[in-house]
């Protein structure tokens, strides 16, 4: 069932020349108790590109995303088979330091989840966890992260106010800044704009465009236009299977699978 399109894979199953593999999933099965949510997912996610995961609700795209920073670990009764290599290291190997992994794989959630603390304390949360206490250093990190998240100009004079006083779109960009503050190389985004108005959504999409040069971004989205706009590659999930993974342009113009075409053209889902 799993198709990795020939154009982008060489004979060994890797990506075409010029693209480096950042994440490699192999034979990934995932279970919530007795229910299998992912079936034999295998594909390579390229470094410093934006990869969109699309598919109808319950297709496993969010579950897959959350296996990449092992956020599923905190749910009781889950089980995983297969491997996920990040930079060629299996993150499910027994010796994996989950904390170190999550430091390299940042995450932005669907519902923006600022902490009920000041803007400064939100962004400084990660660095403080890792032991940065120096005020000057923290101020630098906070400023740099807010600049990268495109929020600095709007909030630079009120870093002391509560994050809860920001608008929804600003809160989501704050969460992005907070994730960037720990300097990850991969950024996971779980429908980051689904709860936002069109203007805020456009800002987040612009931001993804700016961040793509420095980060490997994997974004789950419900919105096909969004996937087409922001991503370089697209993976289509359906009922826990990876149906197709390819260059975004190709996926949206000439998908190899009938199911992909049906979904993209809105025949179901």
């Amino acid at each position: 069932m799993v198709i990795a399109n020939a154009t982008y894979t060489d004979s060994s199953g890797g990506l075409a020349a010029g693209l480096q593999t950042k994440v490699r999933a192999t034979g990934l099965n995932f279970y919530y108790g007795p229910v299998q949510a992912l079936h034999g997912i295998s594909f390579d996610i390229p470094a410093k590109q934006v990869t969109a995961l699309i598919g109808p609700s319950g297709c496993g795209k969010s579950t897959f995303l959350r296996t990449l920073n092992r956020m599923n670990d905190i749910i009781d009764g889950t089980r995983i088979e297969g491997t996920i290599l990040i930079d060629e290291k299996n993150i499910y190997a027994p010796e994996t330091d989950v904390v170190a992994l999550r430091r390299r794989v940042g995450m932005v959630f669907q519902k923006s989840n600022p902490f009920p603390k000041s803007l400064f304390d939100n962004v400084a949360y990660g660095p403080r966890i890792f032991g940065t206490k120096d005020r000057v250093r923290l101020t630098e990190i906070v400023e740099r992260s807010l600049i990268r998240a495109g929020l600095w100009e709007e909030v630079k004079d009120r870093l002391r106010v509560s994050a809860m006083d920001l608008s929804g779109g600003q809160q989501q960009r704050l969460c992005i800044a907070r994730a960037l503050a720990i300097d990850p190389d991969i950024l996971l985004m779980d429908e980051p704009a689904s709860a936002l108005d069109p203007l805020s959504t456009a800002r987040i999409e612009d931001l993804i465009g700016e961040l793509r040069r420095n980060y490997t971004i994997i974004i789950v989205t419900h919105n096909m236009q969004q996937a087409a706009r922001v991503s370089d590659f697209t993976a289509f999930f359906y009922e826990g299977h990876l149906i197709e993974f390819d260059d975004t342009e190709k996926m949206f113009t000439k998908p190899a699978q009938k199911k992909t075409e049906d979904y993209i053209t809105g025949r179901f889902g």
Partner: protein
Amino acid sequence: MRMVTYFIVAVIAYIIADIIWKGVPALTWDFVTGAPRESGAAGGIFPVIVGTFYLMVGTIAVALPLGMASAIYLSEYARQGRFTHAIRLAIITLAGVPSIVFGLFGLGLFVLFFGFGASILSGSLTLACMVLPTIIVASEEALRAVPQYLREGSLALGAGKWQTIQKNVLPYAIPGMITGSVLSIGRAAGETAPILLTAAAFYLPNLPRSVFDQCMALPYHLYVLATQHPDAAKVRPMQYGTALVLVALVMGVNFGAILIRVHFRKKYKW
């Protein structure tokens, strides 16, 4: 329905008014700061107030850390299943055990078995056992009120479990935990049965000097004055004075709990 409510409020108002009306005349400076004389018929109740204060502090010191730790374990660490369910059931049952049973338990375990004797230590430990279930339940509720996404957000940033609890769960849960605990300790302050056998004496010539000394206590003092005193009519003003101090103390503690809640509710919102 409304009439019943009015009726209850009226009864409570009458009791409080009666205590205030008859207690205030007894409430002189001497009464609050002096020691009892003539077996409680004259003098004051200062050592009695001090005794109750010690017992409350002792109870808080034991029950609060234990209760909070249990609640953190139960709601954050323990795998939810039959085992935790059984523990919760036991806790709720424990909360319904009559206080005299706690008194007997304290007598058996702390006074006799551990050999602490009738002392502030035994009394505090006994009271702590009594309020522990309430503190655990209140603390668990406060922890559950912290939204799951705050934990996830923190874990996703690479924080460990304990770091997450410390930095992004407890700060928001502690006001609720403290409010619930303070309320239950206010109730413990007014209990007679648990300290009857473990800590309280009707009359002591000196203030307690260590946790192994017995102490006097407001509810027990009131109990003896009202029921055991040979000349009950003569000590009536003393009874009302003591009752007034006890009621004021318990209400003061409850009011303090409300203040804490209001203060923190303004600070944290989500």
